[in-house]
């Protein structure tokens, strides 16, 4: 029997092994073998993860009724200063156990799904290698015991995201999207890096446990300030920026919609279920510090979440590319999670937001993965991402249709689907804590239902049935199986007693169900569905007229509030033209020019004084004479 430590090490170890093998021998292994091998290895990982996670929750995690963080493995990787060192460790606590399950489970689903979805691709081994790399990195991230370790895997996750978005490397749009995703998240990571530097300096450690200990026990010890704000606040804010980048929070969200250029299963895995919630995870990981040492900041984070949720939802209403709509909905849902964290406090009842947030993370992973995989199936069928190319697919893809509907209902927060429970908890937390955030999120809930059902109706109803692309069916069992599993999950996950397992302080949080409170959101959602049905159930002219009536507002929303353009302007016009170009110009002309000018002026000086060497012997003698007398005068009158 394996020890716990061995088992836990195997969890990231197996994907790493898979990555190395598949990557190194990508040319040698036939595609289907690679896919099968990758999936089987992933399956083993998932089993191990589930085992560890459930073991943690049910068996060895709880001591004295409190879930204790434990470190079953620690390797001193890179000593930095006397106090700081980057350790490669495994931290097991409720959050990481939860994430362990989510990541490996969704990853397995995507692995299975991809066997069918990617089967025509020639570089399938590479694809699986990248998937394994991602899974490895993500698992490493969630289990990191050390904030620098987290950063390391954070970056690796970014890399694998880059590689997978750019998987179709010959498609310029894919390359662009990959670069954009990498650079934007990299920019955000800069904040995180600086935050880590500050927090490690102040906290005299890089390990999460001691950091949290240090800041929660003695928050007043923080010495430095910058611009009148305590350095810890800066650190936490900067770290949040890192999380915001990865989680596509406003205004660092611009990469996520473009990232949909990657293969759809990848979008499901990385850009819906796992990687993008890393920001939520990050704040959850440091939650005690945020909640105790920087409550004001946390409140601000909540506002950012709310803004993102609303903002993304508005844009989602106007888009026509189904993956992009899903991407915006992801953004919106992550906004919810962040918002929920923002309205949470540390410990007991006030920690409801924390629990709700992670609960939503969990349910969202299920139903959003489901939605993406469905979308994948649809795209696979229609060979287009555009909503207008679809419609009336209800009969043609019955399973997909059903699953998609489940997903939509879940995300819209219709009971008894998973999303309802988590959303209800989040809204309740917000209601208790901050009314502004509450109303924003309430409104967004309605919008969510609207745009999701707009999507749903446009795909499956809207037009009459058309017999196009009848060359293949809905997809093989490999594609359908994950849909069904996830669909079941989306239906049933809400009934999990989540608060018992995951809470801000490790003590079980018994969440009550507030029937009266939840009527309003549900009604709003139903209203949203109704409006969507009104407009999109059948193809109607009214859409056009409504859109026209909204005028500028619609155009702005459709143009994604022109955030991309602003970025373009700042990077291309300002940074490029006003910093990079001058830098290169200065180097070429000023500094290099100076060096060359020194050389040239020496040469030209030597040309100017050549007249002294006139070839005339008498002139030589004259200069000689002047030299002698001059020297004599100097020697007698100055130096003697």
């Amino acid at each position: 029997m394996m020890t716990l430590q061995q088992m836990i090490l195997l969890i990231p170890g197996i994907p790493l092994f898979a990555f190395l093998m598949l990557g190194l021998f990508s040319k040698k292994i036939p595609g289907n073998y690679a896919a099968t091998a990758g999936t089987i290895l992933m399956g083993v990982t998932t089993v191990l993860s589930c085992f560890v996670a459930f073991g943690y929750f049910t068996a060895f995690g709880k001591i004295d009724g409190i879930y204790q963080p434990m470190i079953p493995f620690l390797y001193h990787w890179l000593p930095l200063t006397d106090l700081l060192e980057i350790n490669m460790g495994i931290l097991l606590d409720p959050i990481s156990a939860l994430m362990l399950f989510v990541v490996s489970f969704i990853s397995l689903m995507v692995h299975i799904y991809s066997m069918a979805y990617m089967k025509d691709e020639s570089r399938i081994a590479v694809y699986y290698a990248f998937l394994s790399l991602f899974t490895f990195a993500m698992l490493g991230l969630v289990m990191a015991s050390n904030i620098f370790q987290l950063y390391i895997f954070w970056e690796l996750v970014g890399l694998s995201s880059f590689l997978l978005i750019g998987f179709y490397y010959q498609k310029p749009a894919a390359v662009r999207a990959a670069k954009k995703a990498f650079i934007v998240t990299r920019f955000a990571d800069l904040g995180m890096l600086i935050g880590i530097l500050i927090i490690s300096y102040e906290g005299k450690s890089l390990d999460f446990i001691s950091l949290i200990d240090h800041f929660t026990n003695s928050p007043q010890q923080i010495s430095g300030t910058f611009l009148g704000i305590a350095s810890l606040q800066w650190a936490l804010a900067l770290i949040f920026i890192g999380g915001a980048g990865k989680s596509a929070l406003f205004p660092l969200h611009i990469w996520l919609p473009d990232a949909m250029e990657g293969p759809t299963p990848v979008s499901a895995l990385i850009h819906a279920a796992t990687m993008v919630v890393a920001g939520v995870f990050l704040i959850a990981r440091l939650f005690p510090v945020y909640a105790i040492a920087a409550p004001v900041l946390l409140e601000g984070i909540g506002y950012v979440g709310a803004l993102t949720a609303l903002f993304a939802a508005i844009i989602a209403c106007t888009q026509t590319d189904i993956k992009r709509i899903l991407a915006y909905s992801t953004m919106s849902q992550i906004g919810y999670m962040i918002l929920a964290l923002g309205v949470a406090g540390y410990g007991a009842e006030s920690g409801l937001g924390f629990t709700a947030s992670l609960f939503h993370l969990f349910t969202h992973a299920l139903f959003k993965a489901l939605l993406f995989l469905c979308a994948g199936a649809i795209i696979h069928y229609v060979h287009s991402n555009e909503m207008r190319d679809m419609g009336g697919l209800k009969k043609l893809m019955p399973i997909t249709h059903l699953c998609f509907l489940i997903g939509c209902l879940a995300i819209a927060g219709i009971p008894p689907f998973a999303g309802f429970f988590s959303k209800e908890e989040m809204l309740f937390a917000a209601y208790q804590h901050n009314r502004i955030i509450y109303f924003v999120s309430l409104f967004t809930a309605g919008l969510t239902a609207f745009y999701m059902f707009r999507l749903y109706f446009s795909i499956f109803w809207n037009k009459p049935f058309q017999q196009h692309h009848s060359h293949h069916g809905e997809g093989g069992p490999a594609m359908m199986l994950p849909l069904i599993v996830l669909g079941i999950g989306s239906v049933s996950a809400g009934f999990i007693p989540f608060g018992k397992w995951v809470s801000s302080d490790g003590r079980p949080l018994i969440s009550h169900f507030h029937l009266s409170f939840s009527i309003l959101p549900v009604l709003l959602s139903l209203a949203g569905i109704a409006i969507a049905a009104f407009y999109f159930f059948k193809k109607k002219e009214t859409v056009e007229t409504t859109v026209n009536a909204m005028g500028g507002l619609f155009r702005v929303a459709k143009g994604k509030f022109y955030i991309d353009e602003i970025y373009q302007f700042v990077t291309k016009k300002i940074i490029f033209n006003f910093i990079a170009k001058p830098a290169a110009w200065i180097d070429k002309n000023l500094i290099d020019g100076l060096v060359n000018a020194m050389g040239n002026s020496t040469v030209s000086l030597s040309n100017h004084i050549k007249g002294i060497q006139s070839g005339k012997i008498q002139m030589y003698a004259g200069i000689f004479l002047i030299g002698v007398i001059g020297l004599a005068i100097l020697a007698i009158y100055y130096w003697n």
Partner: protein
Amino acid sequence: MTLEPGLYHLLTISTGLFFIGVYGFLTRKNLVTMLMSIELILNSVNLNFIAFNKYLWPHRLDGVFFTLFVIAIAAAEAAVAISIVINIYRNNRSINVEQTEEMKY
């Protein structure tokens, strides 16, 4: 300075002669006349030596011997110089100093 000729008078003559020679060397255009100026220069120094020997250090004959050897050297120098001048004349058919300004800068 008195009228009575003494060391300073002799030194004045020699120095004058010296710089007359220098002037000649600087301005003459003919190589032979330049050589003549050099002879003047060397000769003026002889006067210095003799004068010093006579008026200041008569207990030894250093100045006298110096003069003797300078004269000998002047002769040798003049001989070599003139042979070179003649060679230049052979090559150029002229002993103008401007003929010797080919190499410059």
